[in-house]
């Protein structure tokens, strides 16, 4: 009954050499750097149109000059970033606060859900930017317009996620709190908010993504002097292509920071540390 196994070649599953050591990080850097270097060389040698595709070094130089005291106006880039961030943060925090309140209201009360859910579900599919012209008419070219667009971009996601978070909340916790005579405020701060916290973080994360996209577009349409979106749109009117590329790079870098680093840090500090995600 013995089986001849000598013919079977034993092969151990090993990781391929490409996926170990320095090869992957090198290739990653190369994937970003090689096109840039090729661009630089082609632009310098005049192989591609130097007006439409200025060399990356020229773009970076322009960014550096514009963010220094010799920019026009001085420290221009820093002001653009500061204004964009101000609008994003104020719109986003409005959306988080109002979205949480509305979401809790909708989640807790059957009656409120009956009344407001249809209205919200017909407002939700409207592309956020379609409101921009209306808001422009009502408020003019102003910070309020961009902040409201950012708010609208993020608030529906917040409402939706918070309301569904409340549905997942264990009803018994509410019963316990009520039966021991907790006031409305205590129930809200001690039971509901900790209970829906993971959803709150998820909602903020998704909302930040939507808000960031809406902000750039809204600034193109409705900002008057500052903001990254305004910067690149204004530059396109003057065919100032270096500023556009620089602005797009800044937007990409800031979006990456917002989405992966900032919100990721918050997530790691709260949800993952408390282990709430594993409980669910």
């Amino acid at each position, binding site marked *: 009954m013995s089986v001849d196994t000598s013919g079977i070649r034993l092969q151990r599953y090993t990781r391929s050499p490409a996926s170990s050591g320095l090869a992957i990080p090198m290739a990653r850097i190369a994937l970003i750097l090689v096109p840039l270097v090729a661009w630089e060389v082609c632009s310098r040698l005049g192989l591609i149109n130097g007006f439409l595709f200025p060399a990356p070094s020229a773009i970076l130089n322009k960014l550096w000059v514009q963010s220094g005291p010799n920019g026009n106006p001085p420290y221009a880039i820093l002001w653009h970033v500061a204004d964009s961030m101000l609008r994003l943060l104020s719109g986003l925090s409005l959306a988080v606060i109002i979205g949480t309140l509305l979401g809790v209201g909708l989640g807790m009360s059957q009656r409120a859900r009956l009344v407001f859910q249809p*209205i919200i579900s017909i407002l939700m599919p409207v592309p956020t*930017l379609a409101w921009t012209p209306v808001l422009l008419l009502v408020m003019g070219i102003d910070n309020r317009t961009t902040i409201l667009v950012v708010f609208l971009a993020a608030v529906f996601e917040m409402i939706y996620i918070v309301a569904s978070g409340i549905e997942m909340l264990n009803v018994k916790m509410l019963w316990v709190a009520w039966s021991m005579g907790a006031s409305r405020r205590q129930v809200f701060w001690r039971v509901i908010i900790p209970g829906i916290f993971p959803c709150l973080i998820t909602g903020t994360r998704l909302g930040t993504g939507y808000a960031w*996209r809406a902000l750039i577009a809204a600034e193109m349409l409705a900002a008057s002097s500052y903001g990254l979106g305004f910067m690149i749109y204004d530059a396109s009117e003057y065919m100032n292509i270096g500023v*556009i590329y620089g602005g797009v790079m800044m937007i990409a870098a800031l979006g990456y920071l917002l989405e992966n680093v900032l919100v990721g840090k918050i997530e790691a500090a709260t949800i993952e540390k408390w282990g709430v995600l594993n409980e669910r």
Partner: protein
Amino acid sequence: MSNATPSAPFAGVADEQRLRSILYRGAASAFLFALPIIVFLLIWETTVRLGWINATILPSPSNIARRAWVLLDPADPAKSILLTHIVVSLWRALSSFALACVLAIPMGLFLGLNRTAYLIASPLLSLLLPLPAVAWAPIFLVIFGQGDITIIAVCFLGAFFPILYSTIQGVRAIGRHSLWVVRSMGASRFDIFRRVLLPGALPALISGLKLGMAHSWRTLVAAEMLAALTHGLGFMIFAARSYMDVSTMFVGIVCLALIGLLIERGVFGSLEALTIHRWHGNGKVGSHR
């Protein structure tokens, strides 16, 4: 057919009763859904009529409906202004979506199957993914000028990355074991693709397509406001602003929402019903992105 119904006539009656109750319940829930909206519109109408809200800024719903009727011009559909705008917008959104599908799905399959390629490309992807598609608009405006090419290119970028990302995630979620099993049983490459990869990645793929279409549609509005020359719903809304024609703006907003909803629920809803729900039995869709 062991548990077949005992006699046909009674079954027919029961079926009819069940159908009637389903219809009744459907009508009731539709009514419950519509009632708050109707009340909301009535309140809006009366506050505008009573002059509590400035009608030049927020026109009454009846006013908007009348404006829509004029723009739609049902007597002569060939020359209807609103229909032209809608058709132009749809054409732009759909062509950029199709282009994104053609490029993103094969690329996603490749990056999903090839671990090394995925590891190499992932930093670049995570840099490009949160970049708003509209941010490309100024570059395209300088290179191509205003017009269809710019709009379609911007919408293409809006749709491309969600589809690419979901395809990669869908393929990577399949797991090696099912691939090994099928390969060890001697399946050809095409069989593996058709019987394992495609059904396995489909839930994520379809939610990616849905997301891509939604992004394309939402980006379209902004792109048309920035770069359209004559037509398109976004152009209509933005142009109406110069004439303070608020009713037209609201007509555009309603159209955008309705068409977006129709595409999402109608097209992708039935696509999901046809594929995922049939292949995966129950309606569990891997909706977690």
